[in-house]
């Protein structure tokens, strides 16, 4: 009973924990949540295994991805050490810096296929929109938690502006998929902050009503084509429909137990496009079957579950909102990618989190998990006692 009261006290005075002399466990000292780390490690190892097959045993590609993993884990450890009160205080600068880089991309960015998404620093290239994926929930969480919750209408207005600016900048690149995900990561905070269900329902209605005008005036031809392809891939089997037909064939032909590691014909004979990036789950589904898919999704579910547990146990609203937002955004990435490859959603350039080849996404995600670790271990000092 006394521990409950003790806990309750700390929840009301979060910063007080720093002043209490506690014996810290090893994990608290290094600011690591061992359960989350184990799950992440399990997922990334599985991911490398699938990637090895998808890349046709390309050792150089594996080495590069390995380097990114090391960087990502170092980033995770580093971020986990950061004091969150500091993060909340400096969040607005992180946000403004991100916006500035997004503006820079529009002018000096580089890219391919008609989109300007990259900033180039010598040999190193990165997407500023990735920074925004993390900066957005941080700044919104910091802003909302500084107010009394649930948020009031006036705050929601300012918050929408905070969301709108980077979202529209990313849309200009154009990168519709990322812009929607960045917007979602901000709006999710609003949801966790206790946004009235009436507003949520109203917003939902508005979105449904805006589908037609969006289709007519906002979407570009290639984006429209993707949606058409989703509903009828056979309309252009050699062109836009090719990807989705081949990925569905890869998944379906895997059956329950799969064709075996390195035995996937769709991926190894180059029928499956983007097999080591966005469509990597099709490789897994083909080689390890439905069982492989269940195992992968179970790992994701465990990670998300752990993330939500950390969020619920967060010491204050900022930590809770941030942890909840990072976790749910992570799930959205998973859902969009897994759904898109299976032909449930239109093809947008969203990689499978922590599995697809690519450094930027991996590092950003791991930094997010670093934040979760920080929240988890800060709070644990108290709860463990």
């Amino acid at each position, binding site marked *: 009973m006394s521990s409950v009261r003790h806990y309750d006290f700390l929840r009301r005075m979060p910063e007080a924990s720093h002043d209490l002399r506690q014996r810290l466990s090893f994990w608290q000292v290094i600011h690591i949540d061992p359960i989350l780390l184990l799950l992440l490690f399990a997922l990334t190892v599985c991911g490398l295994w699938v990637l090895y097959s998808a890349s046709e045993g390309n050792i150089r590609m594996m080495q590069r991805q390995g380097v990114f993993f090391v960087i990502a884990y170092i980033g995770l450890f580093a971020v986990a050490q950061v004091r969150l009160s500091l993060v909340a205080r400096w969040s607005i600068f992180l946000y403004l810096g991100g916006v500035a880089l997004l503006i820079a991309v529009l002018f000096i960015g580089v890219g391919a296929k008609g989109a300007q998404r990259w900033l180039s620093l010598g040999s190193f290239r990165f997407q500023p929109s990735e920074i925004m994926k993390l900066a957005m929930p941080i700044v919104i969480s910091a802003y909302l938690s500084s107010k*009394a*919750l649930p948020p009031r209408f006036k705050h929601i207005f300012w918050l929408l502006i905070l969301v709108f600016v980077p979202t529209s900048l990313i849309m200009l690149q154009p990168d519709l998929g990322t812009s929607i995900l960045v917007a979602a990561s901000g709006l999710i905070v609003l949801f966790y*902050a206790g946004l009235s269900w009436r507003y949520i329902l109203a917003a939902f209605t508005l979105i449904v009503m805006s589908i037609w005008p969006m289709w007519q005036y906002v979407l570009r031809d290639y984006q429209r084509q993707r949606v058409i392809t989703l509903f009828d891939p056979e309309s252009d089997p050699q062109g836009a429909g090719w990807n989705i037909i081949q990925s*569905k*064939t890869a998944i379906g032909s895997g059956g329950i137990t799969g064709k075996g590691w390195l035995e996937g014909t769709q991926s190894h004979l180059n029928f499956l496009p983007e097999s080591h990036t966005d469509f990597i789950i099709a490789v897994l*589904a083909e080689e390890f079957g439905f069982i492989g898919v269940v195992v992968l999704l179970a790992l994701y579910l465990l990670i998300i579950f752990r993330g939500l547990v950390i969020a619920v146990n967060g010491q204050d609203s900022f930590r809770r909102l941030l942890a909840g937002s990072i976790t749910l955004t992570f799930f959205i990435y998973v859902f969009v990618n897994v759904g898109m490859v299976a032909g449930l959603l239109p093809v947008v350039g969203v990689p499978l989190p922590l599995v697809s080849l690519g450094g930027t996404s991996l590092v950003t995600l791991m930094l997010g998990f670093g934040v979760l670790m920080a929240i988890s271990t800060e709070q644990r000092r108290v709860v463990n006692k």
Partner: protein
Amino acid sequence: MREREHLKDHHREASIFTGRVIVTLFIVLVMLGVLLTRYYSLQVIHYQNYATESDKNRILVQTIIPNRGLIYDTNGELLADNRPSFTLFLIPERVNDVSSTLSLLKTIISINDQTLQEFYDLLNDERPPYQAIPLRHRLTEEEIARLAVNKYRLSGVSVDAQLVRSYPKPYLFAHTVGYVGKINKKEKARFSEEERKRYKYMLTIGKIGLEKYYESQLFGEMGYQNVEKNALGRVLRTLERVPPVSGKDLRLYMDSRLQKVAWEAMGNRRGAVVAIDVKTGGVLAMLSTPTFNTNLFVTGISHKDYSALTNSLDLPLFDRTIQGRYPPASTVKPALGIAGLASRSITPTYRIFDPGYYKLENDDRLYRDWNPRGHGWVNVHKAIIESSDTFFYDMAYRTGVDQLYHYGSQFGLGKYTHIDIPNELSGLWPSREWKRSARQLPWFPGDTLNIGIGQGDALATPLQLAVMVSTIANRGVRHKPRLVKEIGGEPAQSEVVSAMENVSDKYWDVVHNAMYGVVHASNGTGRRIGRGINYKMAGKTGTAQVVGIKQGEKYDSEALSERHRDHALFIGFAPFDAPQIAIAVIVENGEAGSSAAAPVARKLFDAYISDEYPEQVQSELASRRKP
């Protein structure tokens, strides 16, 4: 400013958050459920469909073309061979730009417009993907080397050795062995479903002769292999292989040495020679002259060569042995002698006086004998030896058209011989029914007289004449003529079509003795070839009118142009006592059977009976290039 009054209620914020997390968890589980349902549907429920799709993606069924059966003559000499030849192929799916690749190729090797046109025809035709399309056949060593040097500039271009039909004796066996050639649109349209599958990857097919008649036996059975390919169509490995079954070899009755004798005996003259093995119906030699080079057709004949063949007045492509229809003329007399004797309208001793013409009662028209002075008293024996027309007018009139038709048919006149090469014509042996349906006219007695000397409407192919004389030699037993003796080592059965069992041997003796006299008697029409002969043979000459001669007009060969001269015919068999070989010869516009056709037959008889053949000093091609 009112805002500031709202104090943070940490407890409430925490419980709101916890509620929202529970909602989140619920949504996450529902969405994961949606994903799992989707994957379950794809991987478990529709597994079969997608597994099939995936296999269709990667597995390519390739056909393996079997080796075509070879054709040998009776002594095992090769008449149709498969020789490796280097061909330039293009796989359009692998060529970036077909037209620029073609213009580049033109600078490396010679490609003429016709070749190019044929390539485009194949390219635009319905075809399986990634099938190599031949562009140039018969590449020389030098061309192959030049292509190898330029290989890096030519993606999708390959040089492959393939077996191409080759005929070692292209002129000698042009019409009998025939040739294979490119499958044309008309043939494709006529294919059955099975043939369409079989020839999907084939470029050539048997066109004429044995190559066409025995196409399915020579072809064998297609082999298949399933290969794995990647998305670019590159073949990676073989998964399953059903080997092809090679076509069956054919061994003929034909003897290329005898064929050569016939060829040399015919010289530059147009005509036909058919020699049949009396006991089996096997065709020993069968030649239509002039002939042509069948090798020209195998990989596609050039327009120039083809028009030279089709425009020639000598019609080299025309197979005279089975399609040439000639009046049999006096060569039918031995067979008609049998008809008269067997129908008892005459007896062996029945005789008439031949004044040089024949006249029907109540008819002013004179039916002339070839000899205006006549032959005096003639019976059937003398009538055959001297070829008395008058006797046969009389005998035909007495026998009547119905009996003549009946017995003529027994010798195969007017009937398909059903020889084992295609496109045979049946000739014509007239009957009352035929005249009524074909000409809408009743039968006149004069018609009977005309067929009595093998003229009028009567027409026969050289092959039919050979079958007729073979039937005479065989005393009525008529065999189906056959070129093929063995198919894949299995002997082909000889077939008896009819066997006039009711005709007494003494009648056969009468006719045989008369035919013996034709060659060996001092008054025989064929006595010229009987000189210096060291075996006994039987024969009959014939001279067929090409242009009708009006009443009272005198035949003057000098005045007629060469092509209006009479055709010379000869039929015969030997040895006389135990017939083995029966021969029919036609020399177009040869004027007289005795002088033009009989000597050709004699050369064949000599070679066959003595089994001595002249050394083949000259190469066949060099001996006579001109068609």
